[in-house]
Each structure stands twice: as structure tokens, then as C-alpha cells.
């Protein structure tokens, strides 16, 4: 799909900060506010803008800590539907955060979020490994998140270190 300059510019703004008002966007791009809203709607309808996720660091909140695991899953693809049907059986579980089909030594990369190690392990042994066609799983627990979807979690590049007035 080929996008117009206005559409690309709107994406650039939203990718940086999706809470900018449509008014401010319109002023930045010399568009009317109405036109901005229509363009965003079109981008959403076409699934170019898929969603506006909020990145929450649950581990900072007492009682809300989570455990994240990345699981390499090997499967035997099924006749006719390949990997898609097995992937669906996995991604339908709400505790599954993401599922990707990968090239290389395993097939599906599954990210899972649970409250405890036990909870995650139980899901892997009771749910994931028992799906027909799943040959093996390798579970990696995430120890620390440094950067997520382009956002540095603990960086301090964001602080303004400039003086208030300079030539």
C-alpha cells in the first residue's frame, strides 16, 4: 500500500506520541483538523495503525509483579493449513502476549506473561506441550527489560540537560 506524505507524517507523529491532539497535529502538518481525523480513521480501518498500546512497567507496582517467558516452540505443520492453525490455538490464550512464526531452529516464538514462575511453567506443561503437533518447547524467563518496542525503560536521554537560554 502506498501512502501519501500527509499519511506518513501523521504516522511519524503518532509513533512518537499518540496522545498529541488532532488540533496540534493539524497545525504541524498544515492540514485541517477534520482532514487529520479522517486520515487517522482511514489508517486505522486499513490496519496500518493496529492499536495504541500503553507500555506499563507492572514490576514497579507492589503486588502486580509479572513473570515474562519467551518460549521457542517446534511443531509439525499440518497438511493444508501449515502453521496457522497451531498458532491460532496458542494465541487464543489471553495469557499469551505474542506469537511469531520464525525461520531457523524452531518455528513459533511465543511470549507469555504470568504472575509467578509456577503459573508460567504450568501453562507450558499443561497447555502448550499438550497441543497436538507441538514437538518440543524451550522456555526462557526474562530477567530484565531494557528496551521495549523502541522505548528505553531506564534511559536518561530524555532529561533536558540544556541551559534555559542559549544563543
Amino acid at each position, binding site marked *: 500500500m502506498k501512502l501519501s506524505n500527509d499519511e506518513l*507524517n501523521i504516522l*511519524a507523529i503518532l509513533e512518537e506520541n499518540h496522545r498529541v*491532539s488532532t488540533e496540534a497535529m493539524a497545525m504541524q502538518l498544515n492540514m485541517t483538523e477534520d482532514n487529520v481525523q479522517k486520515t487517522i480513521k482511514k489508517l486505522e480501518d486499513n490496519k496500518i495503525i493496529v492499536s495504541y498500546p500503553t507500555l506499563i512497567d507492572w514490576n514497579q507496582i507492589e503486588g502486580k509483579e509479572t513473570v515474562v517467558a519467551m518460549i521457542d516452540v517446534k511443531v509439525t505443520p499440518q497438511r493444508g493449513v501449515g502453521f496457522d492453525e497451531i498458532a491460532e490455538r496458542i494465541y487464543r490464550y489471553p495469557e499469551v502476549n505474542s506469537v511469531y512464526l520464525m525461520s531457523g531452529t524452531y518455528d513459533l516464538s511465543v511470549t507469555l506473561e504470568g504472575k509467578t514462575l509456577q503459573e508460567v511453567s504450568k501453562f507450558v506443561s499443561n497447555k502448550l506441550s499438550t497441543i497436538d503437533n507441538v514437538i518440543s518447547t524451550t522456555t526462557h524467563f526474562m530477567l530484565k527489560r531494557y528496551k521495549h518496542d523502541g522505548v528505553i525503560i531506564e534511559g536518561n536521554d530524555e532529561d533536558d540537560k*540544556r541551559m534555559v537560554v542559549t544563543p
Partner: protein
Amino acid sequence: MSMDYEQYLSKTAIDLKPSGIRKFFDLAASMEGVVSLGVGEPDFVTPWNIRDEAINALQDGYTSYTANAGLLELRQEISNYVQRRFNVHYDPENQIIVTVGASQSIDLAFRAIVNPGDEVLIVEPAFVSYASLVILAGGVPVSISTYSENGFKVTPDQIEAAITDKTKAILICTPNNPTGTCLNKEELTEIAKVIQKHDLICITDEIYAELSYDDGFTSMASIPGMYERTILINGFSKGFAMTGWRLGFLSAPKEMVGLMVKIYQYTTMCAPHMLQRAAIEALQNSTDQVEHMRESYWRRRNYMVQALNNIGLDCHIPGGAFYVFPSIKHTGLTSEEFASQLLQQEKVAVVPGNAFGESGEGYIRCSYATSIEQLQEAMKRMERFIDSLK
């Protein structure tokens, strides 16, 4: 024993005009909760690939002096860059010097061409340091005022009128600080004719060249007949978000550069070695990031121009840099009154236009090198301030 220092200190230095920005800085720095439109530098931190190269350079022990003019490898990259971006060729062997900021390039240029009493034309409103540097080099700065009616563009007639038999050179800055005005190819060509007719040197400060938004950018050095009489100044501060690194460069005919290298070896020796290594990376691998920053400034410029016009502060559309220079004349306040009352009442810092020369009176410089949220907040406060004046 108490000393009367006045009698020991340089009269020339004492007589230099105090910077109008300094005064404002002290005031704003003492306050909390200030939203600043007063910052003359990028709000981006230097791209990581460049920072990483500086770390590598330190780890690899690049801590010695370099050639006075800078690392040949860097000068080669500068030569490639200037060729690629501005379509002019300079020999890395003898036509380029890497300096401590563009600031030092400007200083070197004046020192190399000014004889006592020589006049240097400065198009105002202008960056604060030019006039003082001319004086320190023993010359006489002569200002040419430009006005908003003409988009702050200097005309050939104005230059013609300012020329005397003492005139040695003219300094042009495009895109301009504080007005953001960009001179296009036709305008530069017209100016070049006067410069050639009167056999002047042109010092062109193109530090904001990467931040040109509308018609692209033309370098004065690329205008026919100008190469041999132009000292081209550029650097890393603005386009590459590297102000604190203090790295700039100049390029000029080799006869001039030779003399400048002689001065430079006595005053400075060379720019910092490890930073020069990182600058090579900046020129080789930062095109996308420079583009990304340019687009971001371009959007904010559009926002600011509309927002200022909406609250009744008229401004022309600046073609480059990250400044807008709206008129505040209708408020009846002077630039300084406006800026200091705005700071006190609403805690928004702007720079009074007269800090950039007499013709800046009646204007304020608003830098939009800050987040869109901060810009929105600043505009809200400024609107309230303007309403309070009615």
C-alpha cells in the same frame, strides 16, 4: 593592597557589548517551572552511533594531538559531505580546517582577513558573536538592518549603500539565527553580484544548512564567481545535534586556509582527537537521523507559525533553523519589556529581539527546539499574557 583592575584589563574587551542573552539567562535560570523557548540548540541528544564512536575512540586511546587542520580522514569526509550536500569541492589537504565549534571558524575567518580599521558588513538581526569578533580582530563591524516586511532578507541595494572604501567583507548567515530566514539561489545570486562588483570577501555561516525546510538549501560557495572569495563555515552543532562537542569546520581557498592554519596552530593546536573520530561516523552514517530530526523541526515550525499568528503575534514563515521571530510591536512594549514581563508573569522564556541587533527591536526569538507539549503549554501561557495586556 587593592588593585584597580580596570587599568590592567583590555579596553577593547571591556568595551565589548554585553550579551543580551546572558542577562536573560540569569533571570530565567533563577526561576522554577519555566517553559523555555529560549534555547538555541537542538532538543535531541546526539545520535547514538556517534556517541558510541566517541566511546570507542577513547577506549582505543585516541588521546593525542592531531594535525592542526584536523584528521585528514575527517577532512576527507567533510570534503565528501560538502560536495554531496552543497555541490562545491574543497581539497581536504589544504582547504579545510576542523575547529572548536563553528564559533571558532568565525573567529579564525575574521583574524585571517581583517586589517586594522577594515569594515565588515553584518546583516542583522544576527547571531550575537559576529560584531564582537570583528572588533577583537581589529576591524569595524557595520550593520545592515533587515526587516520583516521583506522577510528579513537583505537586498543588493542595502549592501551597496553600506559599502565604503574600507569595506573588506560581508557576513551572511543562512538559514539565519534569530529570524530563520533562508536565502534562495536567486537571492544569493543577486547578492553575489554586489559582492563581486566591490571585490569583497564573503563569510557565509551555514551552520543551519541541514535544517532548511522548503526549497532545499543553496550554499553561497556554489554561486558562480563566489568560490574564490568565500569562506564557508559549517559544523556539527545544529544538524547533527552536537552542540556540546564543540566541533565545526571551515573551507576556503587554500591561500586563506594556509594563513588560518598558522593562526590556529598558535591559538588552539587542534580540535579534540577522540571527538574528531566520532565526527567521521557522524558524516558517514547519520543521514537518516539528520533527516528524522529535520522532519521533526519542520512539523514544529508549522505548529509555531500558526499558533503565534493565532494569538496575534505576526510572523513570517522561516525557511530554516529552529526559530520563529514574531513581531510584538502592537503590544506597545519593547522587546525587553515583553520578554521580562512574560517571564515574570507566565514563566515563559523567550529572547528579546534587540539582543541580535537594533533591527531586532520589536520582535522576540522563539525557539521551537522543544517538545510539542512544551510548545503547547508555552502558547497557552503566551496567549494569557497577551490577553492581560489588553
